[in-house]
């Protein structure tokens, strides 16, 4: 490379001469359309499940009184509030792609840390929540809720808890790996 400017211009020309398939924009657009449909369906499913839970809690609250009623009303309100929160978080996740690259990497690190925290909370808090729930189930009006003492329901709940714990441990390992990868890549940056 004798003449730096001339040689660099030659490299730039070679770089930019890489061909672009004619159908690239159409393929990108088609994939985005599929994703849009999938995202709308996911959001609708999440919202429907949350609202169904809220309706169930509200329905049970109708048969309760005192502290039990207050707990169920709070759960119903929490389920309703989770809908806009989930939508805002989802949107925030999307927009992070538009941040600067340094900002994006910082976002990846924050997301991995937060994800690790939630995953640990899942497999540690899940059994704790189940124990508290089991203790509450025998108290006051909660003992009158339908399904109490059902072996099938208990087995389903235990299986669900086991699957949830396994899944959150798996996610925790993934987030730990992501954090290690981010650290390793940072170490190689100039």
């Amino acid at each position: 490379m004798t003449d730096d400017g001339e040689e660099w211009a030659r490299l730039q020309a070679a770089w930019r001469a890489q061909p672009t398939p004619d159908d690239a924009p159409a393929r990108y657009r088609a994939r985005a359309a599929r994703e849009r449909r999938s995202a709308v369906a996911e959001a609708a499913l999440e919202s429907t499940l949350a609202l169904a839970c809220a309706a169930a809690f509200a329905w049970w609250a109708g048969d309760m009184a005192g502290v039990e009623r207050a707990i169920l009303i709070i759960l119903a309100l929490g389920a309703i509030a989770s809908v806009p929160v989930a939508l805002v978080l989802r949107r925030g996740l999307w927009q992070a792609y538009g941040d600067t690259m340094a900002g994006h990497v910082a976002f990846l690190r924050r997301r991995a840390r937060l994800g690790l925290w939630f995953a640990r909370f899942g497999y540690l808090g899940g059994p704790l929540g189940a124990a508290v729930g089991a203790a509450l189930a025998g108290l006051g009006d909660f003992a009158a809720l339908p399904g109490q003492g059902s072996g099938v329901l208990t087995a389903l709940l235990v299986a669900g808890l086991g699957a949830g714990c396994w899944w959150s441990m798996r996610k925790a390992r993934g987030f730990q790996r992501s954090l290690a990868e981010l650290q390793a890549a940072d170490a190689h940056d100039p």
Partner: protein
Amino acid sequence: MSPSVFDRALEEHAGLIERVVAAYERNPVGREDVKQDIALALWRAAPAWRGDCTLRTFVARIAHNVCVSHIRRSLREPRGDEVNPGLASDAERPDEVVARSDLMRRLINAVAALPQGLREVATLVLEDFSTQEIAQALGLSEAAVFTRVNRAKAALRAMMVKP
């Protein structure tokens, strides 16, 4: 959702996306996946574009961000073979294709071999981005960009003179 920004980004900068991806992913199948991911990220991020930087800078930033996420995920996986751009088009003679694609192939492989921080800068300089645009895209100061550009050029120069 801002369809006009998304459509403009795809129509005007599809080539930029292709070239940025070539610098990060050597495997053709992996490249396709990354390009599709960039399209999704562009669609998702399009409402965030307020015109505070050029659309080209915005597209480059998103393309790099997705590539960075991609290489984080694929660090555990074995790397593919060297890039073979597969560049022949119907309009070119075989000897033209060979001459052009040899330099291109060596250049892409050299860029792909750079450390990530230099690779980001190198691809943007090769795309003829100004120092200010690179600083906007990377979230760095112009002085830091200047330093990285010089390092990237020196590293590329050293790799390109190797037989």
